[in-house]
């Protein structure tokens, strides 16, 4: 009985890592869609988001069921607690990639020249965001406290680039279509910044899982 409970816990953890990989895929696709102005890739993000939502609900149901039937304690309890929180973060990260894809749909309809400096900034932010997301999922998968604690440092350049974005925006044309295009790009940069923040929050959950102590990262 207990053995199967621990097997179920292992499976639950694997499922969270699997959703994490799907979220990484959504972010990568959404980024490519932005950088290439590619509406097809935006559609692929929408489809992938349905899968992420379905999977996170399944994880939540399994977690609740294990709490109800197995009375988990200590590290088992902490794992289920962390899984429930992390799946919420992952679901929201998926939603933010979804918003990016929606923004791409809007961008492709604007008859305006693309401002390369903004695209470049998004590309850079995207690269860092993918790194921090990937590291957060790896930290959870491997119970790696050290890696979890490094996440705020990985997040720092993203916050810096987000600020640069506003400076670049000030240099953009005030023409109506250009402005619409540029402000949509600002929104996208905001989504990336939020995705990275969720990844840092996942790190906090990993730290709790490993140490049993709540600590907010700086």
């Amino acid at each position, binding site marked *: 009985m207990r053995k199967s409970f621990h097997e179920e816990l292992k499976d639950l953890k694997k499922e969270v890592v699997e959703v994490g990989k799907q979220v990484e895929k959504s972010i990568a696709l959404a980024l490519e869609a932005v950088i290439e102005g590619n509406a097809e890739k935006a559609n692929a993000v929408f489809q992938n988001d349905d899968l992420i939502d379905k999977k996170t609900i399944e994880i939540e149901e399994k977690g609740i069921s294990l709490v109800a039937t197995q*009375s988990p304690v*200590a590290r088992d309890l*902490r794992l289920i607690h962390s899984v429930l929180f992390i799946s919420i973060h992952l679901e929201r990260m998926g939603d933010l990639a979804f918003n990016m894809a929606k923004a791409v749909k809007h961008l492709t309809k604007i008859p305006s020249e693309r401002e390369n400096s903004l695209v470049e900034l998004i590309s850079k932010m995207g690269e860092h965001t993918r790194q921090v997301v990937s590291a957060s999922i790896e930290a959870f998968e491997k119970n790696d406290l050290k890696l979890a604690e490094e996440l705020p440092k990985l997040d720092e350049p993203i916050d810096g680039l987000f600020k640069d974005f506003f400076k670049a925006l000030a240099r953009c044309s005030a023409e109506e279509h250009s402005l619409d295009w540029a402000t949509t790009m600002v929104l996208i940069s905001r989504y990336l910044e939020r995705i990275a923040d969720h990844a840092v929050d996942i790190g906090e959950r990993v730290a709790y899982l490993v140490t049993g102590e709540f600590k907010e990262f700086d």
Partner: protein
Amino acid sequence: MVKVTFKVQNLDFWYGTFKALENITIDISANKVTAFIGPSGCGKSTFLRCLNRMNDLIEETRIEGKIFLDGEDIYSGEVNVADLRRRVGMIFQHPNPFPMSVYENVAYGPRIHGIKDKKRLDEIVEKSLDKAALWKEVKDKLHTPALSLSGGQQQRLCIARVLAVNPEVILMDEPCSAIDPTSTQKIEDLIDELKQSYTIIIVTHNMMQAARVSDFTAFLLAENTNGPAKLIEYDSTEVIFTNPKDKRTENYITGRFG
């Protein structure tokens, strides 16, 4: 500062040549519930019985180390053992009412301690049954045989019988293992009530019961077969069940043992 009821220092316990407990040192707080958990046969009940010298009744047992109750060494020659067992009452796994009426079960203790006055006895019986959350259920059948009560009621009657002699400490050895979930819940609610006035020490195999009812939890474990049990970890129940510090405690409570 929390008052310490029992101060146990370097306690070793032997059954003949078999050492069952080794070097147990623990302070048990007053008006708290302290739970002892550990695998079967690890010496939890043995430890409990050391606290009111019930082991004295088993031949060829001996202890080393000290146990103080309110600062008094309970194994010193001056201690009146009968009085010690009045001060430190005990509830067992199976309800064990005497084969007499509900009333007589509760009045028995005060009577042998010299209370003969009927009115005074009536008061004690009512008060004790009330404290044991049983009065309402039995007030109209005080003179029916105790053995006609349900298992859960019999266990609460045994608690009332302990309360009637005005103890300081109540030892409970698996008090709910032979009764149904509803009665278990009543006993657990009762434990929560009783700790306002008494120090409660409970041995349980039901981990969730320990988590639900106790303030502190102590984990006993005999690491070698036929070796003595030691106190592995003792902390607030919250810490033991969310973030135990010792790997052995963690493995035991999460079912990863062996």
